[in-house]
Each structure stands twice: as C-alpha cells, then as structure tokens.
C-alpha cells in the first residue's frame, strides 16, 4: 500500500525493542510520522508533552511494575491533552481496563489486543480513527461484554443481524463502516440501529462515540 494522504504524527510507547522498531518502521513505510518511540510511561509523558502528537500508541505493560502503567499513562494523557488520541494495546484482553478507559475518555480512545498489529492495515486504520477522535474497541472485548452481560434476556430479543450491528457499534464503527463490513446499505444499517436502541430502551444517538459509551454502559450494567 502507498502512503495515506493524511500523515499522522505518532508517539509509540512499547518496552519491547523489536515491537517498537517494527511498529515504527511499518508506520513510517505507510507514510506516517513517528515523532518519538519510547520504552516507558515516564518517557511517554515527556514525549507527548513535547511533541503533542495526533495519537499515542501505548503498550499496557511497561516498566517498572509491568502491570498497567500504559493504561494509567493513557488516562493521564487524555486528561491533560484531550486532543491527543490514545490507543492502548495489550497482550491480554482486560475488559475492566477497557471499559474503565472508555468511561474516563469517551472520544479519541482505543483498546486493542496486541495481536491486531498482524493485520497491518486494520491496525493503522484503528490508529487513524483514534487520532481523529473516534473510538476503537477490540472485537474480543465486545464479544466478552455481550457474553457476560446480565442483560442476556433483553439481548436475546435482538435478531442475529442486530447483534452483529450492536457488536460493531460497540467496537466504535460508524454506520458507513458497519454497512461496508456487513455488505449492506447504510439505510439498512440505520434501520437496524434504530431497532436495537429501541429494543434496549436507549435514546437514539447519531454521535458514534456517545453511542459506543451508551452501548458499553448498557452491556456493563
């Protein structure tokens, strides 16, 4: 693929050098500008303060404790620099961390399983969406939320296609993206969305980010 017409300024925070370098090279090849690639949360904060990037791609586990430094840093960055998108990627799916992140930062956030880097274009697309203030939630997190939801009875009232649409809504997809993913027309998507919100008793919302939060709150409650 060639470079996108809209190069992003990106900061990468990842303690494993091979992954840090690989990401840097790949993103650079795709025409983006990796302004800093750092190995810990402290350096990440400094790099963001200095460069004010469009988006920071952040590994959850970083030194010193290798627990959730990346998550905390992402929340802090989003608070201090609301214009900087934060995409957190994690070796393991931690639904709680994900929903926590989304609760504190309703726009310009993303949470992806680290494996997603393997599908390069999708991953870069997710980075771009977060950079532009969108929301990206890993399909696996959404799947777990749907499975574990105590609203099972209400969710059972949805048709299979409506569940698919709800899942894509929760992943942060726009109506157009949903239409493309399911090979249906945007009009049909709109109809599905209206039906879903009606069945779940949620107020309809055209804002993609706000409806992600509404869907997550619903699944979590």
């Amino acid at each position, binding site marked *: 693929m060639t470079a996108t017409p809209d190069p992003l300024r990106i900061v990468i925070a990842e303690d*494993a050098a091979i992954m840090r370098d*690989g990401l840097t090279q790949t993103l650079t090849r795709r025409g983006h500008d990796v302004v800093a690639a750092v190995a810990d949360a402290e350096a990440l904060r400094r790099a963001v303060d200095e460069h004010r990037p469009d988006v920071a791609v952040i590994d959850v586990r970083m030194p010193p404790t290798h627990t959730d430094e990346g998550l905390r840093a992402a929340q802090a960055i989003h608070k201090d620099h609301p214009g900087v998108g934060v995409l957190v990627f994690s070796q393991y799916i931690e639904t709680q961390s994900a929903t926590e992140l989304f609760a504190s930062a309703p726009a310009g956030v993303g949470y992806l399983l680290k494996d997603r880097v*393997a599908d*390069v274009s999708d991953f870069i697309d997710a980075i771009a969406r977060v950079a532009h203030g969108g929301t990206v939630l890993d399909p696996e997190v959404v799947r777990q*939320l749907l499975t574990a939801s105590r609203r099972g009875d209400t969710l059972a009232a949805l048709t299979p296609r409506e569940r698919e649409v709800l899942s894509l809504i929760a992943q942060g997809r726009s109506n157009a993206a949903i239409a493309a993913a399911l090979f249906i027309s945007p009009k049909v998507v709109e109809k599905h969305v209206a039906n879903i919100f009606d069945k779940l008793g949620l107020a309809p919302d055209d804002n993609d980010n706000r409806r992600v939060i509404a869907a997550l709150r619903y699944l979590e409650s």
Partner: protein
Amino acid sequence: MSRSRARPGPVPGTSDYAGNVLREVSAWLHDRPGQADALLAVALLVVTAPQLAAGGQESVVNRIAFVVVTVLLVASVVARRRYPVAAFAVVAVIAAAQIVLGVQNGGQAQVFALQPTNADLAILVLLYTLAAYRPRPVSIAGLVACLLGSAVAIARWSPANGPHPADALFAAAAGLGGLTLAAWVLGDSVAYRYRRAYYASLEERAARLEAERDAQARIAAAAERARELQEQRARAVDESAARLRRIERDLHDGAQVRLAALAMTLGEIKENLESSGDDHTLALVGAAHQNAKDTLAELRDLARGIHPPVLDRGLGPALGILAGTSAIPVRLTVAITERPSPAIEAMAYFCAAELLANAAKHSGASRVAVSVREQDSGLSLSVTDDGDGGARLVPGGGLAGLRERVQTVDGRLEVDSPPGGPTIVTIDLPRHA
C-alpha cells in the same frame, strides 16, 4: 501393698479349712489396721485386768494410777502406726520407770502402779512397729534400748536369788532377749519387703519418667521437623509461583513479542503482495500469516494458564477479567483488604477459573456468583451456581483434583450440591502458604 486380694472362701470338710479361716482372718485384719490394733489393745487390757484385781488391797489412788499406766501402754499400741517413735518413747519411758521404781530386789514392787504388767507386751509390739515403719538406725536404737532395758530388768529382778540361779538367769535372758529380737526381726523383715517394693516402685517410676522424657523429646523433634517441613513447603509453593510468573514474563518479553513482530511483518508482506498480484506466493504468505496469528493466540492462552499477568494487580482485577471471559454471567464480590501471598492469589484464581468452567460446562446454570472474603485465618472463596446440582467429589475428578491442590497449602474445599441445585463450592485458603 494391694488392698484387694484374692480370698478363697472357706471350704468346710476339707483339710485346708483351718488354714483358710486363718487366711481369711489375717486378710480381714490386714485390710483393717485400725480394727486390728483395737483388737490387740482389748487383748492387752483383758490380760492385764487380773493384775489390777490382784491389787485389791492397794489404795484407790494407786489403783487409778495403775489404770492410767495401763491405758497409756495400750493407747500407744493404738497410736503406733501413726506415731511409731512417740509411742515407742512413751512405752520406753514407762518401762524405764518400771525398772527403776516398780521392781525391787526380792521382786516386791515399790510403786504398785509401776509394777511390770502383761500390758508391757506393748513394748514388743512397738519395737516391731519401729522396725517395720522406721529407718534401720531408728529401729536398731530401739532394739538396743529394749535389750539394755531387758538386761537391767533381769539384773534388778535378779532371778539369781532363786533356787537355780544360772539356769533362771539364762532362761530370763534368753526369753526376754529372744522375744525382743524376734519382735525386731519380724518388724525389720516387713520393712525390708516394704523397702524392696518401694525401691522397685522408685525404679519403675524412674524408668517411666525416662520413657516419658524420651517420648517428649521425640514429640518435640517431630514438631520441629513438622515446622521445618511447613516452612520448606511454603518456600517451595512461593518459589514455584514466582517461577511460573517469571516464565510468563519471559514468554511475554520474548517469544510473544517476536511472534507478534513476525506476524506484523507477514501481514505487511501479505498486503504488499495483494497489490502486486502473485497469487501463489500470496496464498503461502497468507497461510504463514494466519499460522503466526493462531500461534500468537495459542501462546497467549498458554501464558495466561501459566500465570495470568493481571494477578500482579491483585485478585480482584484478575477475577474481574475471569468473570468477563465466562460463558455465563458472573456476579463477582471481592472484599479483601490485605493481599494474600502471590501463590495463594494464584491458587484462588485457578480454583475460581476451574469452578467457573465447571459451572458453564456441567451445571446448566444461567448465572454464577463468585465471592471472595476475608475470614480470621485467611480468605474464603465461594462459587455458587443456580444449576442442576448433584456435583460430587469423585476420586480422579475435577473437584477432587482441586481439593488436592488446595490441601497442599492446608486449605479446605467443601461441596454443597443437592440434586436440583444450587451448587455451592467453598474453598478456604490461608493468607500464606
């Protein structure tokens, strides 16, 4: 000295009859020392009474004095077991007084009350008592006193004045001396038996004490060993948990990262080929890419099975994630203020994971409640499902395996699962292994 002994009953008409009666009486008296002494005292009084009667011409005062002396002698017999030395002393003093004041050359009593009487037999009884109940030096002193007294008495009584002086002297000496010696020897032999029994009992007691001390030492050693083993086990459990955590960390920092980078590169190659259009190579790279992604997923599951990294943040977050991946909705309550050791956290986590998987697979439950709370000695994990119940601990089964694992840290697992449900599995764990 046993107070109960076998007593063969008297058998009239047999030759042993008399012997049996004697044994019966002796045994009866042996068991009732008070009554035996009272009988002896009465016998002494009876044999002394004629002598009082013989003094009919004496004054009332003399006769009362005679009675007082006799009663003292008899009373000392009654008191002999309790106060052997004092009773002997009383009798010895009376006897000495008799020798000095009661007997005169020519055999006429100076003082009626102090003439030798049959009650003087008490001397022999008390010498016997002294020999039987008091240490040898005391009893020998008593014997010497008695022999000396006898000699003086014979000298004072002086049978030498009689018709056959040598014979009479010899007979008196032999009689009195013999009786005295006999009383002493009899008593001493009883004492010897007592002493032997006493020493035997001492030896036995010493042996028992030694055995007890040995046993106590062995118990103390065993307790010490148990404590050592417990500490070693705790160290082993902690080390094993730490090693598993290290393995997961190594996988995360090593193989998983490299594989992710590889998958990313393959993904990029695949996308490049998609635009350049070599279908054959694209298919190969696509397969490699898919393999890398599948391996990544498998490796992740493997690493999480070794040590879920979220456990580093505590049991609450770890169980939260576990609940999120459960196939049936989970209501989770974690109420712990102090974190248990990492090994215990890992054990509680894996127990909860297995119980949740069990509930999802076998119970037919529509919801599960997982709760962790603190209790005095550690923490209590309970997993309750609203399924069909009937879960049992079967040897070799999953629950039995869990119980074995829990028991390695002295934990407990209880299953309450009546037919029809609900199923409650409770696991108590210490705070540290």
